[in-house]
């Protein structure tokens, strides 16, 4: 991939979506957008050659959830961040754009309690059967039901 092509893509992206570059290391791009713009932005990036969705990372900042989509084009990683409120953590599913996101969204749903509108198959993925509803272990305020006691 040409580096100049990469620069053109980025200039067009930041022009179109008006977001700012958060920080940049070699071949790594980080930016933030409001949730409503994410599907359009991802469609744009996919057309620009960022066809590989490596994964979706979710962070619990205590105030809100940050959802980061990591897209790759050869050696470049574009990390697109959006925030959703803790009281109503809902956002649009991107499975229509990246079918490969199907398990990443289900995982985020289990472990953080995010809700992805339009997800074709929102069943639990990694939590066991009979796991209590509303318990999302990767949230920062989550504590194990038995106080974290280990059994041998």
């Amino acid at each position: 991939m040409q580096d100049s092509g990469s620069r053109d893509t980025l200039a067009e992206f930041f022009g179109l979506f008006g977001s700012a570059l958060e920080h940049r290391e070699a071949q790594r791009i980080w930016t933030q957008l409001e949730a409503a713009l994410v599907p359009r932005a991802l469609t744009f990036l996919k057309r620009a050659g960022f066809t590989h969705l490596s994964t979706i990372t979710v962070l619990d900042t205590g105030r809100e959830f940050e959802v980061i989509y990591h897209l790759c084009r050869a050696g470049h990683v574009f990390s697109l961040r959006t925030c959703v409120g803790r009281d109503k953590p809902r956002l649009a599913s991107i499975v229509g754009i990246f079918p490969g996101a199907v398990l990443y969204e289900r995982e985020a749903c289990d472990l953080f309690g995010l809700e992805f509108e339009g997800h074709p198959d929102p069943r639990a993925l990694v939590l066991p059967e009979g796991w209590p509803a509303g318990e999302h272990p990767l949230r920062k305020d989550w504590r194990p039901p038995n106080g974290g006691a280990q059994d041998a």
Partner: protein
Amino acid sequence: MPEFELPVGPQHPALKEPESFRLKIDGEIVVEADVRLGYNHRGIEKACETRTYTQCLYLVERICGICSHAHATAFSQAVEALLGLEIPRRARYIRTIAAELERVHSHLLWLGVAGHEVGFDTLFMYAWRDREAVQDILEIISGNRVNYGLNTIGGVRRDIDPLQKESILGLLEPLTERTSYYARVVQEEGTFRGRVDGVGNLSKDMALALNAVGPQARGSGVPMDVRKDDPYAAYDEMPFKVITSERGDVLGRALVRVLELLESYKIIRHALENLPDGPIAVKAPKKVPAGETVSRYEAPRGENFHYVKANGSETPERVKVRAPTLANIPSLVHILKGAHLADVPIITAAIDPCFSCTDRKLQIAPAGGSGDPRVMTWEELRQYGIRWYKDHAGRA
């Protein structure tokens, strides 16, 4: 004939790891496939949030028994990026050597499993015998056959001396010869070819659309390899080709792995013969300044992706791991549809699934355990082992 649902697993659906498949079948044909994950969740991402970076390094190394160096290196790279540490060139070479040895170990293991899944157990015996040589090499370097504990934040913990170098180069000779023979077996031996030719077809378009990684993608003609695309360790200085196959079937994936073995030997030889002088590690501070980064690594099964966020303390704020098997499950489910039931094991094995990697996060501690973990010293454990085998002699 009415369709019915066939549960496979969670005990040993393909490899000796738990995962559950629900297959809807119409006669001999799979019409619907569903995978249930989670049987190996151990709470590793959550656990990382309460451990120091050094402790996390050893924890992530244990995400997987085979790709242990893959996770430890991906994590080290992320932390080193956050610290702004440049690791010594010799350390980058040693990481590369271990990475390729791990790939050889993994691909030979896979070749044996693939042979076993298609009823060709001779191939299984051969491949696993040869795999012993790689494990011996890993033991020469690290003292361990698995979980090498080679990495540290800032470099590696063990050097390779000239004597070790010679014995490794000696062991690589027969391996190269054997692997060239396997490349012929895979392509020409009817027993193998008959079971994998045209089985489990994944088109290039679907591999791209479903974000497949590693040999699963390369076997469908997608030339994706983090070692070339986004070089880490010393890969920018290594001579090797990215192996792809346009076939898109299980045979294509097998060819990619076997030919990759030959590339790995080339890399190991080059790295050993050109091992730069100098230190093997730099000292890393315990506290990591606030920031976030991603790290990519081409594990034997494909792209391994780590995200690390630091908050300025000695423990990470968040560690996220996406191992290659999870990325390959959507394409696996896709190719299982329409497959013959009898081909399900080899199609599943052909992604080289690692379910321990896939399930890594959650620790389930049921209430009411007995709470008496036994702690032994190394000597006690050794004595226990000797006693156990004496008592059980002849009964295995």
